[in-house]
């Protein structure tokens, strides 16, 4: 998302009109409701909603949790653009000339009530691509005795995609997802690529074959709106292009995963400890030999009772 980095330093219009698209599942009716909210500098859309809920209308329903762009619960459509409510400054979306903020529930999701949407389908699709590391040696994966080795370069290949917070903004923005309920959606596909690009993942062929179906990557036509709205700069559009290219290369047999991480003993066991420099002085009463052999025990009971 192209952020207005200076937004938080500006003062928003003193009073903004918040228009909320509301929905009542009992009567099945949907309407626009308007609230006037006094603002302050640094107020986010979520703050405004909380203020409305506290002072005006306790029946307004929306979802949030962390209030700082980490949990991905508060996605909604602000002035026709999917955004995180807690990450969007009022000053960014309203101006003196147009002090109106229009809030709608996320497009392409089922609306439960007002601004709260149903993510069951979203997570079903996420689960479909097996968003976890697959190893032949399942036992080692579940009860690890050793570590997987990975270089910083290999990490950089997928690090960006691992930042996804499952907020669903990308699916709300996708023009294909808008008309095709069978499409897996940018989020799930980006996650699929995240695990295929991960060197620790061993059964990448299985995941590629899983994706070689109708309604998966080949429905994407690079409108790239998902990348444009993603609040975490995950770049799902780029991930999907790489995934598709990988799958097609795999199909014509020119692609092989170049490296699969091996299990290695942990770092500190591999390298012998460096001896302390002669000028280092030890705290009195500390026996280095003893510390290395047995782990220090923190006397919890003693701390609690004292």
């Amino acid at each position, binding site marked *: 998302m192209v952020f207005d980095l200076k937004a938080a330093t500006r003062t928003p219009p003193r009073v903004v009109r918040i228009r909320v698209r509301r929905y009542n599942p009992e009567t099945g009716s949907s309407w626009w409701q308007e609230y006037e909210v006094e603002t302050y500098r640094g107020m986010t859309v979520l703050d405004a909603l909380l203020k409305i809920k506290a002072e005006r209308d306790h029946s307004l329903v929306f979802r949030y949790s962390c209030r700082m762009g980490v949990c991905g619960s508060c996605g909604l459509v602000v002035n026709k653009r999917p955004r995180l409510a807690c990450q969007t400054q009022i000053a960014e979306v309203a101006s003196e000339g147009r002090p109106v903020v229009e809030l709608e529930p996320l497009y392409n999701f089922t609306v439960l009530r007002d601004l709260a949407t149903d993510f069951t389908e979203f997570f079903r699709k996420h689960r479909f691509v097996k968003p976890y590391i697959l190893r032949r040696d399942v036992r080692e994966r579940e009860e690890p005795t050793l570590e997987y080795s990975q270089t910083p370069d290999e990490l950089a290949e997928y690090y960006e995609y691992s930042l996804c917070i499952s907020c669903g903004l990308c699916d709300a923005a996708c023009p294909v997802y808008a008309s095709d*309920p069978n499409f897996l959606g940018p989020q799930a596909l980006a996650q699929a690529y995240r695990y295929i690009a991960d060197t620790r993942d061993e059964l990448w062929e299985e995941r590629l074959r899983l994706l070689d*179906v109708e309604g998966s990557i080949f429905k994407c036509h690079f409108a790239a709106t998902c990348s444009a709205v993603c609040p975490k700069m995950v770049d799902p559009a780029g991930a999907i292009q790489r995934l598709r290219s990988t799958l097609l290369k795999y*199909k*014509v047999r020119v692609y092989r995963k170049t490296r699969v991480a091996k299990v290695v003993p942990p770092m500190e066991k591999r390298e012998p400890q460096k001896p302390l420099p002669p000028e280092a002085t030890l705290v009195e009463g500390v026996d280095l030999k003893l510390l290395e052999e047995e782990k220090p025990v923190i006397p919890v009971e003693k701390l609690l009772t004292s």
Partner: protein
Amino acid sequence: MKAGTIALIQYATAILMVLLIAWHVAVRIPWLHGVEDLPSTMSPEIIYDEVRRFWPLLILLSIAVVIHGVNGLRGILLEWAGSNERLRFAINILSILAIIALLIVAVHTIVGLPELG
């Protein structure tokens, strides 16, 4: 057919078409034939000569175009059809029929070309 295979066909025909259509359009440039306007580049003599000499290219072009076009439209329609299974099936069948029908016409154009009278 697997979705990936269809996508491969779509991209392969696309590459083919970029080249073939560039040629197909370029031969309609009037100056190449030393005539004044577009319709005269399509006089029976020129067309007859072209088809006689380049018929394999023309057949290839029509195959690529028809497959790429109908398959592309099929993709769009399937997307719009949502999860209505009957509709999806109908779209798939109709696309295959459309491909066959258009190709028959295209082949007839070349095979059935009358001698210049």
